[in-house]
Structures are given as C-alpha cells and as structure tokens.
C-alpha cells in the first residue's frame, strides 16, 4: 500500500509517517513553513505546499500528489482544518472516509481500526475498506531519520475563501504530549486565582500545567492548547495529577495513555475516582499545600 499523509502541523505529519512505516510506503506532505519538523520524519518523499493555505486549495494539492504518486490511501491529521480537508477530499476523490482513528492495522488489503464513539464511552473496533483516514494526533510519537527526505514544492492555487488577518492564540508553546508529569486542573479550582497553587505543585514536580475543557475553552484560565481530552490533547505522562476535575468521559479519553493517574476531588462520588490509581477525597486547597511541602 502507498499512503499520502498530510497535516498542516509538521509534528503531526511526522507522527503519521512514523506510525505508518512498515505498514505502507509513506509520502509526506505539509506546509512549507513546517518543513523542518518533517524533513527527517522518514518518509520516501516530502511535498511542501507553498502559498496562502485554505482547506480548499490544500485538498486540491493533495489530489495532485495522489495523481502524481498513484497513492491509494490518504491519512489526514485531525485538526480543525485537517477535518475540513478530509471532507473535501473524500467527496472530490470519491474516497470512503473513516474518522478519528486511534489505531490502524492492515492485512491483505483489509484494514482494522479503532476509534472512540459516543463521546468517548465506547471503543469501536471496525474492519473497513475505507481509503481516507483521519488520524487522531498523539497516538504515536514522531521519529528522526538519518537523512533528509527528498522534497518537492507545490504552489497552492489562489483560494476562493480569502484570509484577511489572523490573531495568535495565546499559547505557551507547550508540548503536552511529551510531558512526563502533568498537573491538570478543572472547574474545581473555582477561579483563575486558584491556578497559583497548581502552578506551584507543577514547579515542584517539574511538570506541565494542563486543564479540562471548561478551564481552557470557556473560562480561558489556561490557553486552549493545554486542554486534555477527547477534543483536546491525548497525553501519556508517567504521572497525571487531576485537581478538581470530575472525570467526565470526554476528559478521561485524553488520559488513557497516562501511566499513573492521581486525583484530588472533594466529592467522593466523582467519576474520576473510577479512573485513577490513587485518589484523595478532600479540598484541593487544603491538600495541595501539604502535598507540596511533603515532596
């Protein structure tokens, strides 16, 4: 099998290359700006898309790559634009799609995938003849090959959706997927001021700060790239410390890869206690300071 991988995020594109190596002949593609993150991912060839990039003209370029290489499979990283690109490609190229895969195996041309359904309540194992796959970032690591991949640049066509301006999202440039220890906070923090104590703990254990969706998305106590869960990052630290997080299934979906989960929550019946290795029932504002001084 011959597969094209694309993500406008070079790191995600590299992860896909590494994940598919040994299963397929892999051709990578990303945006020119992301070249450095992808040039040593270990693909057979790297296509760099240059110009104003919108899902519409990116999907056209991927179609071009498909024609040029005769690839029969396409893998797209699941990002906001990535899913739009996958949708367009699926319709244009008449390729059957499958979304948010968390694993992919292929035997005699028959693929088996797993993915979450029902908001993370179910893991579905499916046998499929789909040829277009949307890859859930973070299910594998990227690797670094010995040498650079040969590249070719494709000039993107003028899109009909015109970008006018952009604002950066506040981000600390964190790489939560790579963190060894994560201190994660939920609505139980009460207010942004509550963050101080969590940050102190994170510093003490040399960890990164993360949060549940309300904390990142609704209240903006943390930047969005620190959201853990089904619609956020899938993390796999050695220790994940959940402070004031109830442990809804969508949050749990992001921490299944953690080796040890520690939870502090004042509600004894919080679902997080079903999904942790060590749990302390109590007020985080009383427990965390004690924990810090005991460390």
């Amino acid at each position: 099998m011959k597969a094209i991988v694309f993500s406008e995020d070079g790191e995600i594109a590299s992860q896909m290359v590494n994940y598919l190596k040994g299963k397929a002949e892999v051709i990578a593609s990303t945006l020119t700006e992301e070249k450095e993150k992808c040039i040593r991912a270990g693909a057979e060839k790297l296509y760099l898309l240059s110009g104003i990039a919108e899902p519409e003209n990116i999907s056209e370029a991927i179609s071009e790559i498909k024609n040029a290489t005769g690839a029969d499979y396409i893998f797209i990283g699941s990002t906001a634009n990535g899913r739009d690109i996958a949708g367009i490609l699926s319709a244009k190229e008449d390729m059957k799609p499958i979304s948010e895969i968390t694993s992919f195996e292929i035997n005699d041309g028959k693929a088996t995938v797993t993915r979450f359904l029902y908001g993370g309540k179910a893991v579905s194992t499916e046998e499929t003849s789909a040829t277009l796959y949307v890859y859930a970032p973070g299910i594998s690591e990227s690797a670094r090959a010995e040498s650079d991949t040969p590249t070719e640049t494709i000039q993107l066509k003028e899109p009909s959706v015109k970008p006018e301006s952009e604002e950066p999202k506040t981000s600390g440039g964190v790489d939560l997927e790579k963190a060894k220890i994560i201190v994660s906070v939920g609505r139980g923090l009460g207010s942004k001021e509550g963050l101080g104590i969590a940050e102190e703990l994170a510093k003490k254990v040399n960890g990164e700060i993360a949060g549940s969706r309300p904390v990142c998305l609704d209240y903006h106590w943390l930047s969005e790239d620190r959201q853990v869960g089904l619609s956020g990052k899938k993390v796999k630290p050695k220790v994940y410390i959940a402070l004031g997080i109830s442990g809804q299934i969508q949050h749990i979906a992001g921490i299944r890869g953690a080796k040890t989960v520690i939870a502090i929550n004042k509600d004894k019946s919080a679902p997080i206690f079903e999904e942790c290795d060590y749990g302390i029932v109590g007020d985080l504002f009383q427990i965390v300071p004690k924990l810090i001084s005991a460390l």
Partner: protein
Amino acid sequence: MQYIDGGSVGYNIAVLIKVIPDLEQIKAASGTGQIQIEKVPLRLDILSEHAIEAAVQLKEKYGGKVTGFIFGNNESIPLMKKAYAMGVDEGLVITGYKENNPTLTASVISEKLKSLQFDIIVLGNQSADTYTGLLPGMIASKINARLIGNVLSIEIEGKEVKARKSLEKKIEVVKAQMPVVISVTQETNQPRLPPVMQIMAAGRKTIQSEEYKGQTPSYTLTKSRVAPKSERKKQIFEKPEDGIQAVVRVIKEEAR
C-alpha cells in the same frame, strides 16, 4: 439578498441537525462491557444546537428564513420541534438513516440542498456521538459552495460572509462569497432555552418528512463496541494524610 416567500428580503439559510442518542444515558453491559444504545432516548446533537442558534441569530440580525434538515428516521421527526422552538421556520426530516455513513449522509443532504438554492448552510463542526467532522467539507464540495469551517463569529455584507475561524494555534479572519457552508464550534454561542410559549407554538407546526429509499452501501463492519477498559488501581484515600503519603511515594518514584 433574495426575495423569500414572494415578499420579505433576506437570506435563505439552511441548518443541518443531527439526532443522536443521549450520551449521558448510554451504558455498558456489566461483564462484557458491550455498549448498549437500544432504548436510549434521543436528543439533538449539541453541536447541531449551536448551529441552530447561529442560523437563527443570522436570521434575526440580517433577515431571512431558516430551514432545518434532519437525516434520521421516524423517531427523529418529533425532535424537529425543539429546532422550531429555537427559531427554525421550516423543517424537513428525511427518514431512512441506518448507520453512521458520512458518505451517504452527505449525498442525501446535498441532493436536497442543491435543489433549494441556499445562501448559507450552517452545521456543527463535529457531531457529539460519532465525532466524524467530515460533513462540512463533504457538503461544501458536493454543492460547490465555499467552506468556512470552525467559526467563532459571522458577519454578512451583501453576498459576502466574513467569519473568524478557530484553529489550533490561531484565529483566522476570512471572507468568502455566498453560497457558503459554515461549520460552528462549541465556543460560537450559547444555544437558547426557548420559552414555554414558543415550545407550545412549535408543537403545533407541521414537520415535513420524506423517506430515503436508496441503498445504504456499507464499507465498514463493526467488530465490537465496548467501554474502554480501566485497569487503574483505584486506591482511594478518605484520610488526606494517608493519601498524601502514598502519592508522594509514587511521584518520587516516577520522577526519578
């Protein structure tokens, strides 16, 4: 701008609404862990509710008409009432939905949209049950409309739509000419809770329905659908002092 219903000026807006099982009520069978969704009550997909809210707000601000579409089955029909109560003017339920098959859903809905000449089509960026996220691109492509995905806010001027797109690392402001397909994110708005009067009025409105009689070509075979296994130790301490001791030990061990 178009003339709608031979009189009022405004935009012809479509909103795509998915009916899904109430996720909160889905249980796994004890023992096998098999997920059971039979008999789970239905509700509107939360992202579809955000889409309805966005469509109705556009109508309220710029004038026009909102038509809701559900590709579902007979049980889905009454759920259109909630969309009416939220401000959707007309609704069509296409029955005959069998399983999650984005390709089929996109083509069934696109066929309808094509014949009706919409200016704006609003939908969710990822439905809450299957998390597919493919319909926006598929529909835009099939009806040959511009796609503006994952938007936070929308403004209209004449035939031009300007929107803020929420991407992972940035917010991008884009412009496009109608017809446009717009997918909304959860941050876009807060879906309204319709007042009782509106709910009652909605109950009296007719809901059109028709059946999709074509095939459902399946390309995926589900082998199993089980609750994710938790192999966590679940040592819970109700005395914080004991808990702190245990936790300190673990952290020191792992952080080495």
